[in-house]
């Protein structure tokens, strides 16, 4: 007689827990579905139509064709190449610098907290306000950077207004000219020797970017260093290993999951770069700092081509997802001995 009663009570309890759980989950899920999950698919949908102010005719993959090989191809590949160059300049420098700083900071010492705070400060300052400071430092007429260059006998530079490549500038200072090899046709605005290197403007944005993110990477590296068991170090010291050997044979290999993690998120971060580009250069001069993130904004917002913008956004997403999945898989493999 008691059995069915408890069964019913149990069922009622389970039903109650279900209802409560749905009520708890609903608000978050609703917002996430509408503004974060479904729009991901909507982007793909929109990229398949003609769509400027309103939705137009179905165009299949025409927008992708326009972006990849058609009328917009030159701008797209230029911005992709700028994005990759920007990544290649910033990420390795960020990693080496932050790894060295974290390694130095990791050892117990006075003032460690103060250093960490100072290094971290740029990361929490808002991108727009902070990049305004760098624009001022790199001002061609009154900027401090040119004053400093003057001390070492180098003439004033145009910095964020300088479309010429840094190698071209250095070569020019010695009176050399670079061979005129370029993937873009002679009449194209992107025509520049492939040996010219990134524009000084892009290097300027990169200097800011490195300054902004370094403290963040230091904190991640410090956490990674903290995860390495002290036993390894003690064993190595007993065997008479030098500090240098300890760093290259123990710290670096055991830290590699962290290094890999930092490299991936730094890469993804630079693929998405928009705010600093908008604030510092607006993609100029001569589009040498126009990253893909900025190009998407330019095409969809300033030119009103929602369809082409969506197609570019989907392409960027595929690239970013590639890195994310890569990161997940490698991280998964590391967990077993992490």
């Amino acid at each position, binding site marked *: 007689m008691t059995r069915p009663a408890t069964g019913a009570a149990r069922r009622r309890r*389970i039903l109650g827990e279900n209802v*409560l*759980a749905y009520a*708890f*989950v609903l*608000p978050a*899920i609703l917002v*996430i579905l509408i*503004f*974060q*999950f*479904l*729009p991901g698919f909507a*982007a793909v949908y*929109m990229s398949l139509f003609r769509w400027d102010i*309103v939705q137009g005719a179905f165009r299949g993959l025409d927008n992708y064709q326009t972006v990849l090989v058609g009328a917009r191809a030159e701008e797209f590949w230029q911005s992709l190449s700028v994005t990759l160059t920007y990544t290649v300049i910033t990420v390795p420098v960020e990693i080496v610098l932050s790894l*060295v*700083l974290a390694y*130095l900071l990791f*050892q117990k010492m006075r*003032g460690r907290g103060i*250093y*960490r*705070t100072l*290094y*971290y*400060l740029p990361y*929490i*300052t*808002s*991108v*727009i*306000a*902070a990049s*305004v*400071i760098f624009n*001022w430092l790199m001002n061609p007429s*009154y900027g*401090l950077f040119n*004053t400093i260059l003057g001390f070492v006998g180098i003439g004033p530079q145009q910095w964020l207004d300088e479309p010429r490549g840094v190698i071209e500038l250095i070569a020019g200072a010695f009176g050399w000219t670079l061979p005129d090899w370029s993937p873009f046709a002679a009449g194209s605005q992107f025509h520049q020797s492939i040996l010219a290197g990134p524009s000084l403007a892009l290097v300027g944005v990169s200097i800011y970017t490195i*300054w902004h993110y*370094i403290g*963040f990477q230091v*904190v*991640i590296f410090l956490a990674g260093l903290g995860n390495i068991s002290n036993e390894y170090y003690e064993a190595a010291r007993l065997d008479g290993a030098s500090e240098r050997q300890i760093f290259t044979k123990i710290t670096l290999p055991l830290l590699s999951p962290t290094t890999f993690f930092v490299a991936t*998120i730094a890469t*993804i*971060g630079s693929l*998405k770069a928009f*705010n600093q580009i*908008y604030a510092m250069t607006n993609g100029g001069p001569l589009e040498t700092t126009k990253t893909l993130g900025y190009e*998407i904004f330019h095409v*969809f*917002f300033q030119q009103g081509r*929602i369809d082409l*913008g969506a197609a570019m*956004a989907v392409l*960027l*997403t595929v690239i*970013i997802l590639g890195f994310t999945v890569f990161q997940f898989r490698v991280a998964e493999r590391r967990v077993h001995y992490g």
Partner: protein
Amino acid sequence: MKHVVLAAVALVIAFPFYWMISTAFKSFFEATQFPPTAFPHELHLENFATAWGDAPWAGFFRNTLVIGVAVTLGELVTSVLAAYAFARLEFKGKGAIFFILLATYMIPGEATLIPNFVLVTRYLHMADTLQVQIIPFLASVFSVFLLRQHFRSIPNELADAAKVDGAGHLRFLWGVVLPLSIPVLVTVTLITGLGVYDAFQWPLLVTNSDAVRPVQVGMAQFRTEFGAQYHLEMAAATFVIAPVVVIFLFAQRYLIQGVARTGIRG
């Protein structure tokens, strides 16, 4: 030797802040003088008042504050509830819903930007409001994950004891779980709040009028209008940066721990 390297880097990193403040106190004449002066010869405190008066800063800060409070509170409530359900309740479809969250976490903001823009401007007619800067951010997958992780670590014995005492889930959540989660809640609050303070691209796209624009858009606008007044520009940058620096100095423990634990990079 180690200290020399660390201190030199610290100087380089801190220098732009010094240069900002130093320029903010100079006259225009002194700011553009060659060679530049390391310290302002006279302290032009009025630069801050001039910069403040040149644009509707009070409005920008008020908008950011309203958006920040609404988003942070809203996100805390939705995330705490969802995280609790995922951590401590059993329900049908839990796995499937959690999978959707996981998938959402992989979708970058670049993919959702354009559809969201079309949605709020053309279909929801929310352009140029404070709501359009609040509603899309009332939930965050990241916060749900972070809180769920923490809620799971709360010992089951506490839940059993609460059940024996006749406490329902809401009372257990409010009376036991939340008080045990203060540090994580502070971390979520800080990360969300700083995120709102830094918000730029979305408000730039969906707002037109100063009445609803937040601080960072105001800063970009100020730069376009008064960009040649370097001393005023630096004064404005100073009062835009100052609030986050102050908050950071007081609460850095929570932020840095949160970052180290989760590796989130804004």
